[in-house]
């Protein structure tokens, strides 16, 4: 598995996409810091971008990488290798290279602007950690979709729908639900609803870190109560981890039965 991981990683690190992705983050980091001239404000702006963009890029590159390497997978499968090793190796290679683009792309400008000696260092680290989790989650989801769909167009379609659903539609549905059942105590529902969507969960994690939850009223207080302590924080990361583990488990399962 490590060999496959190594080669996919090298292959990806030199590909145009990783470079563009890295260049995008580094430019974004510098531009935001230059315009805001304030690290904590930049972290908030960044959050909004990371939470929507990281899943989108991870999903698209995941789907593209799988379909592009289909014949290569066939070649590898004809060698004495375990099936799961090939897929998990590729999955990790892609997730890690995307995460490195993110970590270096944002890390470099923020380091230069002195994030280490600022008060928001932990907020920034949470942001990077959450972004990394989102990479691992959405590459895994994309691999699930790609493995279940031979047809590339369908695969791309489902992947974009999945992203659209989790990033946009889900919030809309939740909000509609909250508005319709306005008269009932919905704090728990809101909490549950947000926790089940990795994008929402990531957003809340960062917002609470940034201490602007006061803007969210009573529900915000409930959230603060839940996530504010280390137990809630731990649970939130545990849920993100479950979002990684379940799809990866399914990758292994599908890979065992699939024909190439």
């Amino acid at each position, binding site marked *: 598995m490590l*060999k496959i991981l190594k*080669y996919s990683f*090298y*292959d*990806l690190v*030199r*590909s145009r996409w990783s470079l563009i992705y890295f260049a995008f983050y580094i430019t974004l980091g510098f531009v935001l810091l230059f315009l805001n001239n304030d690290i904590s404000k930049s972290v908030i702006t960044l959050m909004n971008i990371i939470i929507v963009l990281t899943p989108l890029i991870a999903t698209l590159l995941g789907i593209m990488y799988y379909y*592009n*390497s*289909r*014949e*290569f997978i*066939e*070649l*590898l*499968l*004809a*060698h*004495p*290798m*375990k*099936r799961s090793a090939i897929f998990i190796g590729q999955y990790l290679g892609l997730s890690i290279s995307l995460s490195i683009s993110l970590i270096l792309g944002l890390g470099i400008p923020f380091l230069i602007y002195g994030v280490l000696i600022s008060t928001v260092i932990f907020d920034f680290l949470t942001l990077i950690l959450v972004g990394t989790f989102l990479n691992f989650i959405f590459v895994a989801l994309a691999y699930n979709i790609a493995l279940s769909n031979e047809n590339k167009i369908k695969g791309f379609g489902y992947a974009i729908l999945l992203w659209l659903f989790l990033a946009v539609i889900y919030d809309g549905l939740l909000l509609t639900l909250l508005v319709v059942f306005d008269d009932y105590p919905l704090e728990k529902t809101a909490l549950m609803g947000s926790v089940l969507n990795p994008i929402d969960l990531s957003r809340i994690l960062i917002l609470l870190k940034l201490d602007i939850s006061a803007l969210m009223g009573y529900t915000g207080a409930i959230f603060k109560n839940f996530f504010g302590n280390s137990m809630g924080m731990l649970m939130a990361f545990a849920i993100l981890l479950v979002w990684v583990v379940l799809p990866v488990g399914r990758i292994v399962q599908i890979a*065992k*039965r*699939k*024909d*190439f």
Partner: protein
Amino acid sequence: MIKIENIHKKFGKVEVLKGVDLHIGTPGIHAILGPNGSGKTTLIKSILGLVIPDKGSIKINGNNISHQWKYRKNIDYLPQIAQFPNNLKVSELLNLIKDLRNQNTRDQDLIKLFELTPFLNKKLGHLSGGTRQKVNIVLAFMCDSPLMILDEPTTGLDPLSTIHLKELLKTATKNGKTILITSHIMSFVEENADEIVFLMDGKIYFKGSTATLKKNTGMNNLEAAIAELLKENHA
């Protein structure tokens, strides 16, 4: 060496293999022939474990291969479409496969034979179809395994490389290897194959030497004999 018993495979509603029994015990070149869509590639891929049959068993040297992977140490495979990661260089791909297989290889001789030295530091994405096929052949022949499976090995090769390929096949048979080949180029098969397995509609219709096939059909060359076989079965 290879014992296939009653394998069935369906892709969706299409039944590709309908109970194939095949025993390949002797070394030499065994050509698997058949019209398009007759199940040649599916059969080959079942032996490699790339396709998992719905029913039946495949044994190699007496061991059932279902969900195994170590037995592939003894198989070299040349896939039909030579597609590799575009960002890897030829030398890196060779190293990757050598690294994966952990076996002695003779890639240097093959690289010289197919004149691939100038391409070693080029990215695979920048190679022409024929050059890719040469890389494919080097990968398939470098490990010296006792069983070789070649799916349309002549695709895209220039005449000189085809001659080299034939020479490689000759030495391989001399060394006592078992080789399975699919090909649509009948002259290539006639010249090289020791045995012919004719597959149609997911079943084996004929298994035997070229001479027997010609005798049975009353034709004096393989192409005509195969055409006759097709006609007989359609009638």
